[in-house]
């Protein structure tokens, strides 16, 4: 169900007196298991497109389907459930809950999903090991480096095996070693778990991992090629 089809997406924002075009009649299809990078300068519409696909934002017109579900027509409640069970998010600013440990941050989402305690605990431990944070389960975000925090955020996003992971500038706050490490993790997850990745970035190194690169400008797709 993870194939995504966007048709004629439009979105504008008001900023002061100006009207800014976020998306301008965007058509795009992403198949199951793809590893896609969205690139383009700031304000080109990358984040807007990610948010629209993730149901965080509704387009002014056009349609988005994930499998046979019209995401743009879902109510807030079902949308939240959709994100909870099928989509993982990774943000530029990690956005971990500061009062919870790495382990607890990962478990929190699973608890909301209704996974039993024992299973939760085991899964969280496994996934943290997989992202290379073994031994750091009981640290709070403030006790972790930026790269480690981002890996916790990734662990949180993928622990329940979502069909799709949306990442918005995941490496913006990371140094090159941490970035390489993170992208390695992403490709591995993409191959091993068949998770679809859509990553918005303007980091050249990130783009080099992509198997499909979509360039955007002024809310339009200006190129879309496999590499």
């Amino acid at each position: 169900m993870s194939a995504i089809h966007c048709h004629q997406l439009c979105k504008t924002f008001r900023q002061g007196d100006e009207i800014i075009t976020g998306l301008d009649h965007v058509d795009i299809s992403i198949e199951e298991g793809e590893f896609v990078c969205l690139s383009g300068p700031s304000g080109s519409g990358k984040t807007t497109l990610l948010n629209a696909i993730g149901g965080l934002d509704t387009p002014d017109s056009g349609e988005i389907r994930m499998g046979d579900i019209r995401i743009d027509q879902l109510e807030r409640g079902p949308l939240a459930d959709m994100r909870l069970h099928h989509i993982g998010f990774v943000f530029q600013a990690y956005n971990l809950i500061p009062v919870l440990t790495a382990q607890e941050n990962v478990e929190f989402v699973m608890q909301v999903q209704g996974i039993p305690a024992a299973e939760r605990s085991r899964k969280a431990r496994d996934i943290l090991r997989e992202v290379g944070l073994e031994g750091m389960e009981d640290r709070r975000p403030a006790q972790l480096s930026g790269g480690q925090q981002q890996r916790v955020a990734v662990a949180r996003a993928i622990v329940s095996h979502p069909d799709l992971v949306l990442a918005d500038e995941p490496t913006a706050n990371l140094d090159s070693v941490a970035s390489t490490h993170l992208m390695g993790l992403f490709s591995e997850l993409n191959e091993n778990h068949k998770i679809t990745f859509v990553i918005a970035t303007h980091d050249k190194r990130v783009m080099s991992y992509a198997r499909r690169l979509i360039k955007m400008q002024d809310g339009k797709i200006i190129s879309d090629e496999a590499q």
Partner: protein
Amino acid sequence: MADVSLVLAWRNLWRHGRRTWLTIGAMIFSNTLLVFSISLQFGSYDMMIDNTLQAYSGHIQLQHARYLDEPKMRYALPDIDASAQTLRKELGLSSISARAVGFALASSHERSYGLQILGVDAEHEPLVSTLPGLVKQGRYLDPAAVEEIVIGSVLARNLKVGPGDELTFLGSGFDDSFAAGVVTVVGVFESGVADLDRSMAQVNLGYFQEIFAMQGHGHSIVIRAAHIDDVDQLMADISTLKPASDKLAIRHWDELQPGLRQAIQADMTSAWFMYLVLIVLVAFSVLNTQLMSVLERTREFGTMMALGLQPSRLARLVMLETALMTSVGLALGITLGCLITWYLSHVGFSYPGMEEMAVKFNLPDRMYPAISPVSLTLGPGIVAIGSLLASIYPATRLYLLLPIEAMRAA
């Protein structure tokens, strides 16, 4: 770690430890005060009711239907002694006693005073009233004797008589005839109730009926229940045995002492006004803290919503935080309130001016608060409910949150 939400809520509380403690401080302050004053209130009400009813009026009285509003000689019940005896047997309760009431002018060698003279069943009277036990000089009436009288202490002083002295009294009898007698003072009681000490005297019922030409009549059958909570049941039992009619009424202590319940009501109303103000102020504190806490976490809540959490779950998280904070305030407030109250319930409590007030309401001059499960939890319980209600507004703000805007917030 069984429940991440609980852990999350608890840790969130301590992100601003000082703020949380200040809010909990307001709760502890109010809860302690509420526990103490509600215990004190309950303690003094119980004592007020018991002392007032036990001294004289009892819990229930059988009277002529018109006697309560017009306490006149002729509104009497026939064969009162036999009726009381039957009632004792049928109810299996011995604390039932018959009385007759008259007015007379009593004269000693030096003085004359108007007084209320009571004909009592000296054998059963001690079971319904504390007066016989409060005889401070001499003794109480001998059931077999005639021409004996027991009088209040102030009256004794005013008449300048004591045990062994003679009194003559004059009044009018049941049939409007002239009633007169010469009696010997055998005892002087001191109840602390000004009205009784100043103007009451007791003689044996048989003697009273003879002097006042009562022809077996009396004015009331006084019943004291084993416990004040049994009164309603007892009332029901009595009315099946002796149905009320235009000649007979069964009077609850509420009717016999209307001032008592009303004084309690008036006191209760003003006390609850004060409690309510305290509770509202605590609610404001909670509202302030929780609203701030929600507003400063906008970004975090945005993330959680992006991860797929419903606003209702976040709202529940905020309510859970309030509940935890309230529980701490509740536990500490009740503990502190309980300790203070417990201490004062042993050593007693008084403030300047209390002694004078206490006399007015038949209370001892030190107050002993009564700790009960209700007095411990009633006030703090309402504080807790008020706090939870106050956090509804901050919680509903989460429903207005849009994830991307929230995540953009500073």
